[in-house]
């Protein structure tokens, strides 16, 4: 990641009738970073991607992407960006190879290298064997890989991924995550729209959280966790016969509202690692047999729920 700004929005706004899809959005994305764009369905993520690629015009505000205006330099900009749309958007009556070679022409891949480039990306996404089958016969995971190959075919500087792992099996999801890591290592900027918080936590350098088109948080996952969720939590695993004694000891020391159960463990909210020695001493004195005490950092999921006031559970 460098300090070069590749995406800059100033009060970017888009209305559809009375609905504010994107509400005065101001942010910067730096070259080479994996930038997470989080929000519920309908939060304005896809509309923002459309605005940043010059496919949709803003109602107010402005954006600059790769020092170009999406509004006035749309074709030149789109030559340098790649977009994986939420649905694969592939021509199912065509073969995988045809899908790629047609888009190679559309994106201006040098004519002499089209067939090599297509073969390279088919190979990279493990689609070579089925390259000459019609896409309608592909599995969902294969279609998603082909769509990703198409988005990367012209080797864009910024890649926008709109829910790239939605509905995929774990194996394909892992392949997609590997690709995102690889793109980042190659110095490309990845703009990742997702409502998968675990994915965002593991992949993103920084995240922006959007609610009803409005930016409500921006920073690294760790920064946001520190700002938004106060105190760590501890996870304790104790012998089953000691569980009642452990719960009553913890409740008397920290209050009943701080204790919860999670699978086989007990969770103590709002406690940091400094109290662990005293905690263990107290529990041992109460005759509790302790197997494990683990401090847990607040996750992006905790941040997200804190931001949304636990009003809704994200899908």
């Amino acid at each position: 990641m460098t300090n070069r700004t590749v995406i800059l929005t100033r009060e970017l706004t888009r209305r559809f009738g009375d609905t504010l899809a994107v509400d005065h959005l101001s942010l910067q994305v730096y070259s080479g970073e994996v930038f997470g764009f989080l929000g519920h369905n309908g939060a304005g993520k896809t509309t923002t991607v459309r605005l940043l690629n010059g496919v949709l015009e803003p109602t107010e505000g402005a954006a600059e992407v790769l020092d170009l205006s999406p509004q006035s330099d749309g074709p030149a900009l789109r030559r340098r960006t790649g977009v994986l749309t939420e649905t694969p958007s592939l021509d199912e009556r065509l073969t995988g190879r045809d899908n790629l070679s047609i888009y190679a022409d559309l994106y201006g891949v040098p004519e002499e290298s089209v067939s090599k480039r297509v073969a390279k990306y088919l190979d990279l996404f493990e689609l070579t064997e089925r390259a000459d089958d019609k896409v309608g016969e592909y599995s969902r995971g294969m279609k998603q890989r082909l769509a990703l190959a198409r988005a990367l075919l012209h080797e864009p500087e910024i890649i926008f991924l709109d829910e790239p792992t939605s509905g995929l099996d774990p194996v394909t999801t892992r392949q997609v995550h590997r690709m995102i890591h690889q793109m980042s290592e190659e110095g490309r900027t990845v703009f990742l729209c997702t409502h998968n918080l675990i994915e965002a936590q593991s992949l993103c350098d920084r995240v922006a959280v959007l609610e009803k088109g409005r930016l409500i948080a921006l920073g690294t996952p760790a920064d946001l966790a520190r700002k938004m969720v106060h105190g760590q939590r501890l996870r304790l695993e104790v012998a089953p016969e000691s569980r009642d004694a452990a719960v009553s000891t913890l409740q008397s020391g920290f209050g009943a509202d701080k204790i919860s159960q999670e699978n086989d463990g007990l969770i103590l909210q709002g406690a940091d690692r400094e109290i662990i020695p005293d905690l263990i001493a107290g529990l041992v004195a109460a005759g509790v047999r302790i197997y494990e005490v683990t401090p847990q950092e607040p996750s992006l999921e905790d941040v997200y729920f804190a931001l949304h006031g636990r009003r809704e559970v994200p899908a």
Partner: protein
Amino acid sequence: MNRRAISAVIRKDLKVVLGSKGILMPLIIVPVVIFVALPALASLAPGVVNIPGANLSDIGSFIARMPAGLQAQLAGYDEVQQIIILMLVYVLAPMYLIVPLMVASVIAADSFAGEKERKTLEALLYTPTSDQELFFAKVLSAWLPAMGVALGGFVLYAIVANLAAWPVMGRIFFPNLMWILLVIWVAPAVAGLGLGTMVLVSSRVSGFQEAYQLGGAIVIPIVVLVIGQATGVMYFSAGLVALLGLVIWAVDAVILWFGIKVFQRGELIVRI
């Protein structure tokens, strides 16, 4: 204009059409009927007039009800030759126009509304093509095959018509000036009319079938021409055909002007 991108869109749309039997079949069957089966029937004409009880004076009185210009064109031929010329040169002339109209309409409906239905339009809108290039490419992807089929069909029709009528006519009698005008002046305009109508209709509907059903109404003027010519209400003279072409080109210009207005990325993407 980015020619490479335009030809890529055309290639894509044509491959997509060729990949659908449901769309391809009518594009084959209708031209075969109009360009081969109907003119081939001319070979049956001598047999028809020799059927016992057939009254040649009926044919004479039928031709007598035709416009004077047409009667002048038929003067000097015997009754069987008159039937052949009447059918192959005049009655089937407006029917020929159905082919470019239908081919352009079907492909345009698949290209514009079908692309929305298949959810493939969004990826296309993210490519570095301009709105004008995309529109131009999509128009050509419907217009070029329509003209290919119309021109190829015309050649086929000419061969079948002359072969089928040879025993009666004894010479190459087809095409005449009116047909040449029909092919090079009116058919391209009619193809434009079909696809222009589909561009407008497709912007308001969500799928191929809906577009094709609504846009199908554009065939009504052609049917009126067929009936008008068959009943003798009008006569497809070279002058009338030239005028007809002019009117259709003018309508095309208006429809395509509206089509360009409608075909804007920002409008299309919100309707996906």
